[in-house]
């Protein structure tokens, strides 16, 4: 039982990272009808920003994170300006291709600047963690879970309790109608890109001390987060969170009880199972093409 609980804790920590990146996916799907294939690279860029602030500039950890988060927010707007804005009237596919191109560009620009050697980042806290009953709670995994919970609560507050949130929801549900009410749709979409980049960046910064920071770190995270999105229900916010957590737990348990080398396979096996049995995911609705 102790091992199971330990694995559950670790799985939830990893799952929270997938959930944050999946949330970024969902927000952009809802606001701009864009599947952003560079969402994982947002995590990579965020992690490298933290590397620069912490290891190169020698700034304190929390200040480094704060600066990186702000920079990610700005980066999201620039990203939208480069990949989405010029193609926004040309349908979904050109924008998707554009984000794939951007993901390759981002990886290569970081490779050019930093080289292929992975970077190592220390954890947020000096203490290795705390023992709660039979479970040792690693401080970084604990930070991930606390940060992810706070971000989900913050997001709920913004979307459900503020006028900005209602305008964002209106934009995601019917852009033309939102525009006819005087809602600044372009600003809403740019805000969503910015917020989504911030979420991705924070996920990268949180996971950086657990993994190595490398150019390719975003790709696998994005694939898992996209799978979480499908498992939770395409375009569903609660689905992204639950899907991410479920995926993290499934792959951790699978790795521990069945096979470590096939760790990634468990996540995608789960995806395939959902696609076959419940393609609308946990919270999704069956969608039919409009006539």
């Amino acid at each position, binding site marked *: 039982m102790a091992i199971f609980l330990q694995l559950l804790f670790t799985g939830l920590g990893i799952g929270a990272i997938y959930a944050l990146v999946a949330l970024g996916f969902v927000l952009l799907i809802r606001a701009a009808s864009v599947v952003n294939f560079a969402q994982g690279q947002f995590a990579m860029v965020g992690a490298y920003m933290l590397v620069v602030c912490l290891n190169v500039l020698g700034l304190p950890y929390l200040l480094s994170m704060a600066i990186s988060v702000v920079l990610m927010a700005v980066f999201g707007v620039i990203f939208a300006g480069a990949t989405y804005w010029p193609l926004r009237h040309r349908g979904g596919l050109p924008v998707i291709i554009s984000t794939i191109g951007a993901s390759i560009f981002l990886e290569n620009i970081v490779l050019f600047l930093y080289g292929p050697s992975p970077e190592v980042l220390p954890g947020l806290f000096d203490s290795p963690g705390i023992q709660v009953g039979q479970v040792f709670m690693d401080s970084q995994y604990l930070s991930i879970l606390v940060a992810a919970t706070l971000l989900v609560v913050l997001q709920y507050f913004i979307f459900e309790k503020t006028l900005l949130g209602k305008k964002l*929801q*209106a934009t995601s549900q019917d852009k033309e*109608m939102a525009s*006819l*009410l*005087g809602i600044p749709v372009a600003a809403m979409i740019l805000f969503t890109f910015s917020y989504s980049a911030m979420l991705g960046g924070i996920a990268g910064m949180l996971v950086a001390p657990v993994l190595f920071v490398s150019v390719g770190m975003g790709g696998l995270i994005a694939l898992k987060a996209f799978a979480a999105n499908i498992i939770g229900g395409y375009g569903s916010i609660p689905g992204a969170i639950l899907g991410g957590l479920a995926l993290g737990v499934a792959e951790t348990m699978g790795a521990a009880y069945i096979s470590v080398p096939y760790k990634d396979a468990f996540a995608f096996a789960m995806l395939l199972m959902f696609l076959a049995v419940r393609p609308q995911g946990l919270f999704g609705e069956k969608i039919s093409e409009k006539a």
Partner: protein
Amino acid sequence: MSLLEIENLTARYSSGAGDVLKGIDVSVEEGEIVALLGANGAGKSTTLRAISGLVPHVGGSIKLGGVPLFGQGVEAIVRLGVAHVPEGRRVFPGLTVAENIMLGASNRTGLGRAEMMREVDEKFELFPDLVRLRDALGWTLSGGQLQMVAVARGLMAKPRVLLLDEPSLGLAPLIVQQVFKIVAEIRRRGTTVLLVEQNANVALSVADRGYVLETGRVLVSGKPEDLWKDPQVRAAYLGGHAIA
């Protein structure tokens, strides 16, 4: 000077396509209800969409209170005082009735949330049937309820002119009567209305003037009683019989 002045309006949806509107002249005076009538494809809804800045290829001119609307963005046109209640109501399905109505005031900068909610409550006085649905989500509403929410939302903008596109579409006759009673009440309270309708009987029962459109042109215009007198118009576009 008319409040809304449309001169020689032409419109098409994509370059290379034929004109949907072929030089329309329409004017709307302050405090009037003006009806645009005609068969499907006559260009009625396109005229409203052109006023709101939603049609990309337009010619001629549209002025609101003397201010040209061409070249302004959709959101800027709303801020100038044009509220558009489009065909199909387009109520946000995932937001509540109160939230939908509240968002109608998005064009009014500097309006606090408390003030906004007070105005939402005022709208419920005009639409008492919606009071019990205040917290119901948009997708749960019936056609008539959706229409009322859409009109209430349009009024939240405090528009100089309210564009109403096919408010009777898909509604039961009793609900249509109810909706048009509200349209008359809206005008009584001082809002100018440009109304697009296929149901000429109900539209002309509340309108001060009407324009009959045919394939992108104004066929005839005038007061309701004059339109009813034109046998060709009555036969072809107004259902062939006068208002009861």
